[in-house]
């Protein structure tokens, strides 16, 4: 059981890294999501998830063949956090795309390297009504 998890995690991690190396920003962000899930799977596998009983017991009772519940709890936390970060990354990506018109990673670096704008030319904070959904 564990070797399936390990190999899947490995393949997914490879896919994720490959996608992150792409020039297209969308793939980079998706690559992070894939890599994140590969790592979640890896954490679960490393923590020995194999077992046929639920990891739940009453007083005086002993469960012999249960999966380790701790990695499950860890991964659950990591999934939730990862999801939030992914959504944030997507929203930044969406806005970047709207502003740049394309999603090229080189373009992003170029824009970051632009000389600092003068103080009075700072891009203004969008008015509140623009940010309402």
């Amino acid at each position, binding site marked *: 059981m564990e070797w399936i998890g390990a190999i899947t995690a490995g393949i997914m991690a490879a896919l994720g890294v490959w996608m992150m190396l792409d020039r297209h920003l969308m793939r980079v962000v998706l690559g992070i999501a894939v890599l994140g899930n590969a790592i979640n799977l*890896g954490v679960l596998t490393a923590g020995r998830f194999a077992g046929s009983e639920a990891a739940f017991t009453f007083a005086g009772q002993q469960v012999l063949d249960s999966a380790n519940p701790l990695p499950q709890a860890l991964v659950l936390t990591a999934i939730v956090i990862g999801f939030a970060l992914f959504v944030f990354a997507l929203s930044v*990506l969406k806005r*970047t795309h709207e502003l740049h018109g394309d999603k090229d990673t080189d373009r992003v670096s170029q824009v970051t390297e632009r000389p600092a704008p003068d103080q009075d030319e700072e891009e203004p904070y969008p008015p509140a009504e623009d940010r309402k959904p």
Partner: protein
Amino acid sequence: MNVLVILPILIPLTTLLLALLVRRHHAWVTVISMTGSAILLLAGIYLVALAAEGTVLSAQMGGWAAPYGISLVIDRLSAVMVAISGVIGFATLVYCFRQPMPADFLRDTHLFIQGLLVGICGAFVTADIFNLYVWFEVLLIGSFALIALGGGERRLSGAMTYLVLNMLATLLFLLAAGLVYGATGTLNMGELALLFRADEASAGAWLGVILMLVSFSIKAALFPLFGWLPASYHVAWTPVSALFAGLLTKVGVYALIRLVTLLWPEPGVVHSVLLWVACATMIIGVLGAAAQTEVRRILSFHIVSQVGYMVLGLALATPLALAGAVFYLIHHIVVKANLFFVGGIAARLSGSERLAAMGGLYARTPLLAILFAIPALSLAGIPPLSGFWAKFVLVKASLDAGIWVAAFFALFTGIFTLLSMSKIWNETFLKAHPDPERIGATGNGPRSAWFTVAGLAAITVMIGLGAGPVMDYAIAASTQLIEAPAYLQLLNRGGE
């Protein structure tokens, strides 16, 4: 359970929740947030006072005994880090006060800074690896929001770079935590320390821990993993980048110091790798700064170079060197944040932060020149300011250890730092402004920003003049780091 231990997390969290409740009233958000960080500052000072007497606070969350439950520990290093976070958090909020920005922008900044402080303080007090990961994520999401706040093409592009590389670092940390748990069956730092100190760690555990060091190195912006920092810090709003410059990489440095001193109290292979990494970081950072022509970009590269000094202290692993690293950490956070603040005021007065478009500020406001000179000279290590003592101790420690190369690199970097600071000085203060009408066209800015800068400069001078007590504290902290009484005792004592 000792309530004091969770104070550093509880205070910013409560402040954040209260501020969220009244988020429609901007003035109230400001009041609550500033009060909250003032309380955090006071709590930090109280914790330092307790720690200075040798008290080590610890608690088990939910009453679950170590190593099963999450442990929180506040020793000397944690206490001083919490206090300094309080200082910088409060300073940033004072700087933000009455800045000419839209009210909702300021409100959002306040909220996210509190969120960021929750994560930072959490990372400083936890003694559990997975919990550290969670705090990293908390501070990460706060910093993502802060760096992107305000929008615009340039800022979002910088935010994108920051976001991708920091998410990658955190994912590596998660994998490392999983692997370490898989190999050792524990997430408690104390139990890991026992395992490694007894030399009973398996290859899998080593793999996980090394991966963890790599992840912390990305966070701390060590060579060769520092690329994200100079590519993103200069795009954020000035107070935000000052807060980042002061605190964020230092969370990574703190985690490195904590892990390395816990697992390998004696110098070993990890230390020799770190030594070369530290030397490379110092040099590359300072050379990178020499090529820059904007205030914040120069300063960003100097963050990298300065982190090298702290890691140098860690890598030498003698008690004196570790004390130097702790002293450097304290000194650097204050000075670096202050330089960003001064840079912000100077940019406002000149109308730009490009050195070519700045100038004439010495004639305009000699006070600002003095306020810049104090942290700048301190950064370069001119006596009697705080940076001199920090560098002096590190150089002495490397000479004591017989590692001349490290001492040479440290001094060499110091000269280049001075060079780069004099570049900013010449271009910003002495040179005539290319367009004199622009100087001070928008006024001096809010007075509170000047108070922030003056206050932080006063702290730098105080650390410099009172270097004795601070160094005593740092030495005691470094002994405590190696002996790690709290971390190891938690295991024997069980829950409280």
